[in-house]
């Protein structure tokens, strides 16, 4: 049977898309409230820090950030083709590298909190 790395990236895309479908609107809404000067209680330094310091909070942030990134990366690769960019190998390397860099960064930063 032919081997392909497609299932790995596709499952990350699907997982990220599902998580984004459920959580992205409400999370964006929280940041919109901050922009409007009505920051929710969670955004006070004490509460935000306590949330990110707890292992459950870290896990939540890690899952949201990395899965959103991998979802966006894979879909961006396909969409680049639809916009007429036909260098798929280069596009794939670029978007997946960016997502991988974001994943490493979020792990390192979350472990520092």
């Amino acid at each position: 049977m032919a081997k392909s790395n497609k299932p790995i990236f596709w499952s990350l895309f699907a997982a990220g898309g599902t998580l984004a479908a459920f959580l992205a609107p409400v999370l964006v809404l929280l940041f919109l409230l901050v922009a409007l000067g009505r920051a929710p209680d969670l955004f006070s330094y004490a509460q935000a820090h306590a949330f990110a310091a707890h292992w459950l909070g870290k896990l939540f942030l890690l899952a949201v950030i990395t899965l959103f990134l991998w979802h966006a990366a894979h879909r961006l690769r396909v969409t680049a083709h639809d916009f007429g960019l036909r260098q798929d190998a280069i596009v794939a390397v670029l978007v997946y590298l960016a997502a991988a860099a974001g994943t490493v960064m979020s792990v390192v930063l979350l472990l520092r909190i």
Partner: protein
Amino acid sequence: MSRRPFVREVSKTRWYFKHPRYLRYMSREITCIFIGAFALLLLCAVLHLSRGQAAWESFLAALQGPWSALGLLVILAFALHNTTSWFNVTPKAMPVQIGEDFLPGKFIVAAHYLAWILASVLVLYFAGVR
């Protein structure tokens, strides 16, 4: 083989303007740009949070204002578009079979919307939005 084969001209970069259906497809695809941008904003938030209180508060201050509100509103619109388009294809992505029959798609879609509302309310409650 005809000596002058018919070649349909299809623009590689503007084909999706040919039919509203193609435009709707592209509108779903480009939601990923905004989901990705929001992931970067979250990463930026975590970066500032890891640098202490002063950095966190300057991050929040920089986030305030009409332009970032407008940007977040656009991200919110595309995030909602991702949500509705994602849920509306769930009956095709994971059909539920009961014996010989399939559960009508509207129940699968409705269950997703219900869970979505519940999750959103939970997040708002947890974040202390009143």
